[in-house]
């Protein structure tokens, strides 16, 4: 499949020219190498820079809630124009979940859906095809990837580079959109979640050791929280002093508490976009925590967040037959 870049840029230009649209958030080429940056497009010139490629791993939905609501100067009206947003399949689920939680209103956003055949794992790419200063592009080529650099095209097999989250992806096509930029992609056979299974195969002590090693590495940079589209409380409970749920000191005890608490707060809300793991500078496999919980929610409670905008939030509802085999 191949996204028609002209079509994308033309559509984007049309959208930002609307009176009721403030800006469009999309991906554009970064300043060097494989870098892809988020673009806040306000005119046709900006739209001409938009891309959609296997390098577009970032989940732009997080920008919907990162926007600061500044005090409105006296005499002025708040700017209630819409934000337009480009979303892959996984990203669109974040938008849907935000709607369920009233983080945004449907009227606040114009959703531009980009059916996605899968993005690359940046670490694998850097390992196999080391980055240089020269600007590089990537394209989808059937099921595989095409690396375009220095005028040369290199075909790379899908399996070599596909991001782990994409191997497990159940929603490559956006579940909600106002404009769909391409035809839907065909879903592919899902891999086993080996990362989670690896942990499930360990006994309690092995698990304790495993996670002890991981959380010891945490530097409490909060990148995971910042990048997550569903972490948007102005004043996060884990930063609070009254009460102090988790101390701010960086040690194994507090790090574990922080990560467990965050994973728990995301139960039934996390849409498995994998961004947290991608941005963690300490390479902690956060995705495993969130994917495990997401699977329990699916299997035991029959619920999947971010699919139905009318759904009841998982943590604010119950079913009479919720599992209770663990209750004495």
């Amino acid at each position, binding site marked *: 499949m191949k996204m028609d870049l002209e079509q994308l840029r033309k559509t984007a230009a049309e959208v930002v020219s609307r009176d009721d649209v403030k800006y469009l958030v999309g991906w554009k080429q970064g300043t060097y190498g494989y870098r892809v940056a988020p673009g806040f497009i306000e005119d046709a010139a900006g739209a001409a820079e938009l891309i959609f490629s296997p390098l577009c791993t970032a989940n732009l939905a997080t920008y919907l809630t990162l926007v600061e609501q500044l005090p409105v100067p006296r005499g002025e009206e708040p700017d209630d124009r819409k934000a337009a947003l480009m979303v892959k399949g996984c990203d669109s689920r974040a938008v849907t979940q935000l709607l369920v939680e009233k983080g945004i209103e449907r009227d606040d956003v114009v959703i531009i859906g980009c059916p996605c055949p899968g993005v690359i794992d940046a670490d694998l790419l850097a390992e196999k095809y080391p980055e240089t200063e020269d600007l590089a592009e990537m394209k989808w080529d059937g099921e595989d990837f095409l690396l375009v650099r220095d005028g040369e095209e290199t075909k790379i097999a899908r399996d070599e580079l596909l991001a782990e989250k994409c191997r497990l992806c159940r929603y490559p096509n956006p579940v909600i959109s106002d404009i769909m930029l391409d035809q839907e992609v065909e879903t592919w056979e899902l891999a086993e979640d080996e990362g989670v299974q690896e942990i499930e195969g360990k006994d*309690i002590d092995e698990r304790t050791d495993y996670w002890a090693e991981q959380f010891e590495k945490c530097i409490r940079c909060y990148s995971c929280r910042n990048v997550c589209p569903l972490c948007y409380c102005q004043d996060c409970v884990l930063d609070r002093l009254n009460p102090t749920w988790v101390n701010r000191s960086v040690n194994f005890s*507090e790090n574990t508490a922080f990560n467990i608490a965050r994973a*728990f707060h995301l*139960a039934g809300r996390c849409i498995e976009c994998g961004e947290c793991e991608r941005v963690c500078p300490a390479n902690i496999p956060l995705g495993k925590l969130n994917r495990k919980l997401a699977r*329990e929610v699916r299997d*035991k409670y029959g619920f999947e967040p971010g699919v139905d905008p009318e759904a009841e939030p*998982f*943590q604010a509802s119950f079913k009479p037959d919720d599992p209770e085999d663990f209750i*004495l």
Partner: protein
Amino acid sequence: MSANFEPNIVAFLCNWCSYAGADLAGTSRVNYPSNIQIIRVMCSGRVNPLYVMNALQQGADGVLVSGCHPGDCHYMEGNYYARRRLGMLKDLMEFVGVDPKRFHMSWVSASEGHKWKEVVEKTVEDAKEAGPFEGFRRRKIEW
């Protein structure tokens, strides 16, 4: 682990059923281990699952949450929410390497003094088996 290990159990009991059931156990002079310390909340639905994590961090070796039987919640539905949330928490804790023997949830009604005794005994026994909680226990910093 030493044979003399006495686990420290923190329990959250709902005022209308489980707390009353524990009181009944007392009035009936039923005997049970003293490892358990009770914090009274109005409803099991009040129990923020992160209390469990916090308790383990702050010195508990085991945690127990007890509420009314499904259908009998004094506030109608609180125990259903508790059931869902604490079920998820149990899965998460187990995945992260916390021995499932450390966390229990029970339904104990105001007339079940004897059941309360059994629940306490099971909780204490399981916590003994699991041993002192090291895990992510907050440690006192010795300068």
